């Protein structure tokens, strides 16, 4: 079990800056994020899109913002647990007991939810019957490609993941690539490669088709796909892979006894505390009168929540406000020289 002064859920810009604020005032913290990389929506949804409303930064991309924040917290060596989703948050005396989907546990007086619009999960096929084959013959990511050797694999999607896997798996499997339109949005070189492989018969290309049904007993046996002109084809296949990107889902946060309305958590504007003492929500996921879903608001909310954490983490000490420009203690924490 890991003991820490505060646990942050979410490694997006708000979570990262909140970590900075906690460390600056002398508290420990660790960060958990369901994605396998740091940056949250900035990295997952718009790494290349310019942002124009970060104070004192006229223009930067989601990726640049993330990298700057990572630099800013570098002196603190903050432990981040990536690719893990917090599933459980339970009261344990004066503390919160937190457990991830991989079984990692934390004990902390403060939990700060900086979860954006929830955790990123893969988008799934629409026919309901797909669920029963999930992780057996239907996958939304590839962990072990050897299981596809010599088999028929039907890949759905038009982006880089779908195209890359179609090219890769065509070396040792029979590959069907199915997409809802003629245009692919992947890298041009990969698109060209796919067309080349389709010409030479290594990939069976089906465009303007979408999945309508799946058949099979324990394992997938065939799929039905429907053309824009309503024609339906049945294709024998051992596996189906769907690459439709990620979607944000509130997930387990809904079960922690918080006041949730329209996927956001109600907080006060002094501590950004929820209806549960010691659980805070900051950034896009919190709501209060006048809430703006801007990155700059998340920074402010995180700074205030961090001060509130101090009281619960150090009940016998008094928090003293200090400026980074003048405080020797803060400069020591940052590892920079004092004047």
């Amino acid at each position: 079990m890991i003991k820490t002064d505060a646990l942050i859920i979410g490694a997006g810009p708000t979570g990262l800056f909140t970590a900075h604020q906690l460390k600056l005032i002398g508290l420990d913290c660790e960060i958990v994020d369901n994605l396998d990389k740091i940056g949250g929506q900035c990295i997952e949804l718009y790494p290349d899109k310019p942002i124009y409303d970060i104070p004192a930064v006229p223009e930067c991309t989601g990726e640049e913002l993330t990298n700057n924040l990572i630099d800013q917290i570098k002196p603190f060596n903050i432990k981040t647990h990536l690719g893990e989703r917090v599933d459980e948050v339970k009261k344990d005396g004066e503390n919160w007991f937190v457990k991830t989907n991989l079984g990692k546990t934390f004990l902390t007086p403060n939990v700060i939810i900086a979860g954006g619009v929830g955790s990123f999960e893969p988008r799934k096929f629409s026919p309901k019957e797909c669920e029963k084959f999930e992780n057996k013959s239907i996958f939304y990511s590839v962990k072990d490609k050897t299981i596809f050797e010599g088999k028929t694999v039907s890949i759905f999607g038009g982006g880089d993941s779908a195209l890359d896997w179609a090219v890769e798996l065509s070396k040792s499997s029979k590959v069907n690539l199915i997409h809802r339109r003629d245009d692919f949005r992947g890298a041009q070189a990969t698109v060209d490669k796919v067309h080349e492989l389709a010409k030479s018969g290594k990939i069976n290309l089906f465009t303007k088709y979408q999945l309508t049904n799946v058949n099979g007993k324990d394992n997938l046996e065939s799929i039905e796909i429907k053309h824009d002109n309503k024609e339906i084809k049945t294709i024998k296949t051992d596996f189906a892979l769907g690459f439709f990107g990620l979607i944000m889902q509130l997930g387990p946060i809904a079960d922690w006894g918080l006041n949730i309305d329209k996927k956001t958590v109600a907080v006060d504007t002094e501590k950004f505390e929820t209806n549960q003492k010691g659980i805070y929500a900051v950034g896009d996921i919190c709501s209060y009168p006048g809430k703006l879903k801007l990155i700059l608001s998340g920074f402010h909310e995180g700074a205030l929540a961090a001060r509130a954490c101090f009281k619960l983490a150090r009940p016998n000490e008094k928090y003293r406000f200090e400026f980074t420009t003048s405080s020797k203690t803060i400069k020591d924490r940052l590892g920079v020289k004092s004047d």
Partner: protein
Amino acid sequence: MTKIIYNTHDNKTHTIDVQNGLTVMEGAVQNDIPGIDADCGGGMACATCHVYVDEDWVQKLPQKDDGEEDMLDMAFEPKKNSRLSCQIIVSDELDGLVVNIPSKQS
């Protein structure tokens, strides 16, 4: 103000006066029309404000750009008349626009 007609999946019709300049997505969210999630807040980055535009209106709307078509690849059950409602800006010309909201967004 322009009238936008939102048909929700429960067969209810919501006729809303939306201010010109707002998007069809904002018109729905501000008036609590169910079924439009708009997780990314209008950034054309999530495909959770997906609507089916009434056939009569498909041709009358400004064309979608490439980014919108790319995002629609990820929408739940996209069709030929699919649009992201965050990319449709309300104006006088759209008075009476009918959009159908899908059963779910993901």
